[in-house]
């Protein structure tokens, strides 16, 4: 390592950044630059991009699925013990996205690889932490907001709490998870990282009439 590669106080400081412009104040969090802004608004949007995001592919309805605990179309927090503290999203037929606290992608990837090996099925695990942008909408009006940019029926009959679906949101292919928190309606939205800023801007625009505000990152965020 060259001298130029060291910061004044020692080892290299590598900074990970979300694609979504963060409002002040900017604070470091486990190697990421996140917003420390706090909002008490009834409808908020939070950038959760720093969360670990690991994709799993394996046969639908097989042993891996049983271990992960979430079938296609559903999200679950009650999978294998190794997955405590994570949210497993059944994001496609034979496809899962596991969301976990910031900085845990390596461990989660290994846990998942272990699950796949144990299942004895053809399966793969890919770390997509840096490949996706992740946002949370929180507030009773979040469904009304989403209904302005997404054609899927957001009623309890079609997309109850725990529903996971992929559709077009503001004309962008987006994974949506209904993940109510503390009895308040909430949605996670994740899309290709490169369009994260676009999606955040579209949601802020659509939410203006509901008084949407940006709430900064709060650990663990999930």
């Amino acid at each position: 390592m060259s001298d130029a590669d060291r910061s004044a106080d020692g080892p290299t400081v590598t900074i990970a950044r979300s694609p979504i412009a963060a409002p002040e104040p900017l604070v470091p969090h486990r190697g990421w630059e996140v917003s420390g802004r706090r909002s008490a608004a009834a409808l908020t949007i939070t950038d959760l991009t720093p969360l670990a995001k690991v994709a799993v592919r394996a046969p639908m309805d097989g042993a891996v699925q049983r271990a992960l605990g979430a079938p296609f179309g559903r999200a679950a927090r009650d999978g294998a013990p190794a997955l405590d503290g994570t949210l497993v999203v059944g994001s496609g037929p034979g496809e899962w996205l596991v969301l976990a606290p910031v900085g845990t992608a390596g461990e989660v990837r290994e846990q998942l690889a272990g699950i796949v090996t144990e299942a004895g099925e053809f399966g793969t695990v890919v770390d997509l932490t840096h490949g996706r942008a992740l946002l949370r909408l929180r507030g009773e009006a979040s469904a009304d907001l989403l209904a302005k940019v997404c054609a899927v029926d957001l009623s309890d009959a079609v997309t109850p709490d725990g529903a996971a679906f992929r559709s077009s949101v503001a004309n962008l292919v987006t994974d949506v998870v209904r993940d109510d928190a503390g009895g308040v309606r909430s949605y996670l939205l994740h899309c290709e990282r490169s369009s994260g800023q676009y999606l955040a801007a579209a949601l802020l625009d659509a939410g203006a009439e509901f008084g949407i505000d940006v709430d900064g990152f709060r650990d663990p965020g999930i």
Partner: protein
Amino acid sequence: MTQGSTATATGAAMRLGPQPGEVIDRNRTIEFRWNGRAYQAHPGDTIISALAAAGERVFSRSYKYHRPRGLLTADFLDPGCQLQVGDEPNVRAAHRLVEAGMDVRSQNTWPSLKFDVKAVNGLAGRFLATGFYYKTFIKPERLWPAYERVLRKFVHAGEVSPDTEHGYYDKRYAHPDVLVTGGGPAGMAAAVAAARAGARVLLVEEEHHLGGHLRWGDDTARAVRAELAEQVRSEPGIEVLTDSVVVGRYDDNWIGVMQRNLPHVVERLVKVRAKSLVVAPGLVERPYVFTGNDLPGVMLSTAARRLINLYAVKPGERAVVLSANPEGDAAVADLQRAGVEIAAVADARRGQRVVRARGRGGVQSVELADGSRIDCDLLVTAVGWTAPTSLLNMAGARPVYRPEVARFVPDPAHTPDGVLAVGGIAGDGTLDQLREHADAVGREAARRAAQLAHRLHGALPTRPRDAAPQPAPVTDPVPIPELPLAEHPELFFSTHGFVDFSEDVSSKDLVTAVKEGYDSVELVKRYTTATMGPAQGKLETVNTVAIVAAATGRSIAETGTTTWRPMYAPVTLGALAGRSFEPIRHSPMQPWHERHGATPLVAGQWIRPEHYGDPAAEVRTVRSGVGIIDVTPIGKLDLRGPDVAKLLNLLYVNKWSKLDIGRVRYGVMCADDGVVLDDGVTGRLGDDHYLMSTTSSGAATVWEWVENWLQTEHPDWQVHVTPVTTAYASINVAGPRSRELLGRLTEGVDLRPEAFGYMNVRTGTVAGVQDCVLWRIGFTGELSYEIHLPASYGLHVWERLIETGADLGVVPFGVEAQRILRLEKGHFIVGQDTDGLTQGYTAGLGSLIKLDKADFVGKPELAWQAERGGYPQLVGLLPVDGDVVPPEASQIITGGGHIAGRITSSRMSPTLGRAICLGQVDSGLAEAGTRVTVRLPDGRDVEAVITAHHAQVDPEGERQRV
């Protein structure tokens, strides 16, 4: 409000005392301007009701003949009441509520609203004959600009200032079980019944209040209205949209609703997916055709009743009423109560007819069929109803004409399950009968919606697997009582008069059209433009059909109607365009590019730096020192599984079985027709792990292509494909000093050429960032490394490269410099140097294509291409005059002027100081040394020579292998 304004004295000349059903707030007075003068209104007034209260009768000039026009229907459809409000043209002023400070002006008033009509008529009449669109202004063509200026003055639309601010138009989706269109008694009753049956209901009403015709009815009617409105309000399952209109119905009850009364937005388009649609638009009163029927002061009975009962406006002083139905009789009673003198009632049921209205600028007298002539300033007609069946027709239903009731009636047998009709459109009867019918239809609509929901939602993956199964819906249909049809005389016309008030089409025009041979009503419509104006046939269609029927000697049923198509009501372009949803994509380094003055280039969804000021200088730096370029948009697919090599062998034209770990290989994909689809390099990172790159523009296509082959042809192959284009930030470090720069920041990778040679791949740490993939490849033709690094660190690594390489003179370079560098090197770009017909051999891939492979996509066509020979070829070209850069797409021509190829890429080469090109030429011209003629877009011809290689710089590739 100030009492001293100019209009105050006459401001309320026609305002009546309080009316029981009025919707105005008399406690408040607001002021607005009409053609520059101040007027007063009460909140709740429409623009027109306020002007009518002030005694105004003329609001516009007609489209072609510039006849003065007043109030006809006193609702949204009123053809004479389209006005300009501020910047907004074509405002339906008999619908739009007046607001304080509004600046309202008349439209199409050339020279002025009050100008004597004869002068304009004399000028216009000459060329406004039937079908004038098709007969005049045709030749000579050079006069079109002059014609256009004249025509513009006749157009009845208002004006949009180029400075008008772009409004905020909104969109929203809705998924009600039942959508009820129309908030009259039947619509309200159906909505309540459906909601009580458990359905989520969206109730859409075009006017500002629920109630329909009950609002201008008697005490009993108003009491029923209040009762129903209260039921609607207290039903939590009903969402009500007023001042909103259903504009179209499409497949699977996909329904457009325009919502107009929102605080934050100009208009909102609600895209509704309804399980059941209940159509409840009521009936539209039909104008009567006779001479002078467009004079201000001639109005429909519903218009007179609205004015009196809703706005407390006296419609005139002395009236003649032509009545064919109880509503006409009720209008007589309302007029009497309002203090209007009834000069005569002509009872159409007893054969009495109005044949002419006379007057200048308004009705002064009316002539009846018996020859009597009565002085009056108001003629009210009540001659029958049109069923606005548009939504039913859009659903595939074909309403049938019933002469005994003088209107079209829906045929339930030919209406889809998801669409039902209630209210006047479905039949007549007492208010109780209509409510009872609507109640049954509402319950049936809810039942059908529940059945459909059960079918659609049963297997949705988003519902919990262990959830209790949804209760099976009731299968027995709700019995729906028959509605009687009330007999009504057929009354359409007595003498010649206007049929389409907005398009200024008269019954004479229709008869002329028939005489000229347009015997079908669809042809008459297009030839005369009758029914094609803003009311879109709701006022005009049945009269048009009746007149065409009479002129052709057929019945109305035989003549049939014109087709009702979306939109049911006019829609602004802003509402249809809405907010634009065009996703854009940025690389993690975009903030740096913006800070450093990059000129943005829009490449598909990506915003990329085209250059940072001087692309030629960027090229020279890459050739002599080192540059870095952000190539994040390069498509990247992570491929894993034991069968990846099989997949690569199938999709690429070259061989992939023996790619060692740590190696990368260039490959080209062709489609089944042998046409070049994409190219890129793929590296092997592990036993069963590969990283494929694609062109930036082809990333999505290739991913779908790969998935298609895996999912449909080879589902047994074990391969998982993950798109990782934006999981990695990609930076190409290029130039003779790139190894030196990278060496300062890289850990865990031996960069020495003997350890990390050309076309190899390594993984390691760059600038402290782990898990970076480094490819030693060379699109620019220089020693270069393409680094793919976890995207969140993209900006960090980019900044470190710039800082660390400062003493090496590192510069960022953009897409333009890269295009020049690759052209100097002769690398083709799929989609630029190839097109939708360029097969593999044409692109010069002869040495890459392995026809001895068992199978690969495109092989049959490529084999036939090779066998056939004589195909065009991609070649390098040097213009003889090196200062001339033939623009891309310049044609290559032969002596006879035949096209024999084209320039596909061309640039001035900073390295060579001369113009260089790639192009496609016919096979006979492809040999090195051939001179060809290039025709420039300005018509000049220049000479160019075909070169031995595509590359003009370092064709042997020495520089990239160091």
